[in-house]
């Protein structure tokens, strides 16, 4: 694997506010890095520094091993960037706009038609190609923004909230597009939609108050959740009848919470100690006591729980 983007001790201050505080990470080819964090955490500022729009107060960014500060044009050639809110020249049509970006990106005249056709097909822009961008819906505007970012087939793709404001179908399309490209590129995308991380990212970084507070695969982050490996158990029984006591006495069980009691079905949440797997014990116990189990499943842990925990921890 090759390191495509390396960020070293990046710091940026705006007047008295430290928007980004000593952030370091690496992104390899084939990785899709999800940037998570509350609004104002410093996600966009970090992305603006990686793309060379802002210069950092401290630290440096390396694109394919080259310092962006010394080779800004080379770095910008390597990167495709969708800025927050997908700003576009509204008086142009998508066709003219993409041709403009293609020329500036140095795509040869002989190839530009083919590239345009490819990209337009990828993001489904055919129907609005010759309409002025101002008149397009939000979804189409976002797609034009994506099209300009991937037009030159960049090795590094940086997308600031690529699915923000899209409807569920459009979100799905954009995520598919990202997943399709993931193998050949290093992709960094910011989002505050946690399901998106599950859907497309191979790794997630949570940022709060300008600092990295968690970094790992989505699964690893989920494992930090107090719900990880918890068992939810629904039993048909007239009364609780000591069931929770029995469950609590099992090995590695931290606590048992009755969740609901509806129409004779009682639901329990059995939380393990330190995220160990307890499903076997619970299931054996249910069998042994002859409980009428209606449903039983293992919780993966919830990213939003982890998110809330690590970001709130920073605040207090």
């Amino acid at each position: 694997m090759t390191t495509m983007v390396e960020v070293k001790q990046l710091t940026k201050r705006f007047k008295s506010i430290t928007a980004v505080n000593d952030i370091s990470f690496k992104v390899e080819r084939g990785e899709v890095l999800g940037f998570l964090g509350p609004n104002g955490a410093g996600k966009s500022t970090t992305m603006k520094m990686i793309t060379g729009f802002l210069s950092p107060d401290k630290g440096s960014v390396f694109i394919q091993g080259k310092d962006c500060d010394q080779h800004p044009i080379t770095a910008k050639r390597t990167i495709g960037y969708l800025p927050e809110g997908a700003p576009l020249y509204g008086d142009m049509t998508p066709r003219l706009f993409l041709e403009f970006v293609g020329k500036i990106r140095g795509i040869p005249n002989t190839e530009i038609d083919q590239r345009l056709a490819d990209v337009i097909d990828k993001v489904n822009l055919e129907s609005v190609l010759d309409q002025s961008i101002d008149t397009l819906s939000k979804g189409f505007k976002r797609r034009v923004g994506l099209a300009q970012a991937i037009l030159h087939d960049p090795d590094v793709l940086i997308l600031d909230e690529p699915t923000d404001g899209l409807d569920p179908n459009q979100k799905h399309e954009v995520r598919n597009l990202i997943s399709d490209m993931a193998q050949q590129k290093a992709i960094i995308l910011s989002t505050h939609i946690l399901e998106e991380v599950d859907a497309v990212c191979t790794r997630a970084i949570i940022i709060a108050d300008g600092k990295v507070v968690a970094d790992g695969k989505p699964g690893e982050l989920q494992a930090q959740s107090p719900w990880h490996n918890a068992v939810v158990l629904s039993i048909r029984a007239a009364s609780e009848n000591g069931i929770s006591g029995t469950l609590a006495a099992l090995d590695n069980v931290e606590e048992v919470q009755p969740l609901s009691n509806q129409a004779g079905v009682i639901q329990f949440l059995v939380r393990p100690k330190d995220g160990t797997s307890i499903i076997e014990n619970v299931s054996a116990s249910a069998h042994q006591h002859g409980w009428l189990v209606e449903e039983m499943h293992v919780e993966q842990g919830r990213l939003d729980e982890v998110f809330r925990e690590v970001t709130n921890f920073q605040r207090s």
Partner: protein
Amino acid sequence: MANVWTICKRELFSYFATPIAYVFIIIFLSLSGIFTFYLGNFFERGQADLITFFGFHPWLYLFLIPALTMRLWAEERKSGTIELLLTLPITMLQAVLGKFLATWIFTSIALALTFPMWITVNFLGNPDNGVIFASYLGSLLMSGAFIAIGSCISALTKNQVIAFVVSAAICLVFILSGFPMVLDFFTGWAPEFIVEVISSFSFLTHFEGLSKGVVDMRDIIFFVSLIAFWLFANAVLIEIKKAD
């Protein structure tokens, strides 16, 4: 250079994609005609020259050019497209030059469309066409200086109205800097040579020479270096202010 041209074409396109281009050209042509024939008494003077026509150019540029330049950077900053533009593989200088050239080319199109004036005066008499050519050159150079000022001021704000008003005010100072309105402000407390330097910045003085047919290199250098200075300031200011 190719990048400068690509940016320039995009900017030119956006003038013509909106009514700005047509409004500007129509107003510029009508006003320059009206001023020449009515205020300038073109016929009554009985002279086969375009001195009165060119005499109004600084005043037309004073409010028409800031209207062209106010959007150059202010709009990019307001809509956020500046982030798009400046993360493309171009240098700041290319972006600044491209935008400047677009406005300058556009102004020269408007200026070229005043050719009926030239035909009229040639039809009515035998003017010195060399003088007229020098005047066109002078007018074009002067418009370049106005555009460079306007572009630089536009980089300072997201608000186009502010860009317009401030650019017009600075252009006025440059037009009038040979006149008592500006000089009186400095005489009395500033040293003599400063007052002289300020008065030497007058657009009117430098334009007057050219519009009389005297192509003095000093006047040309004056306008060219003024354009260079304001465009340099423009690039520096965007670098500082782009994130705000």
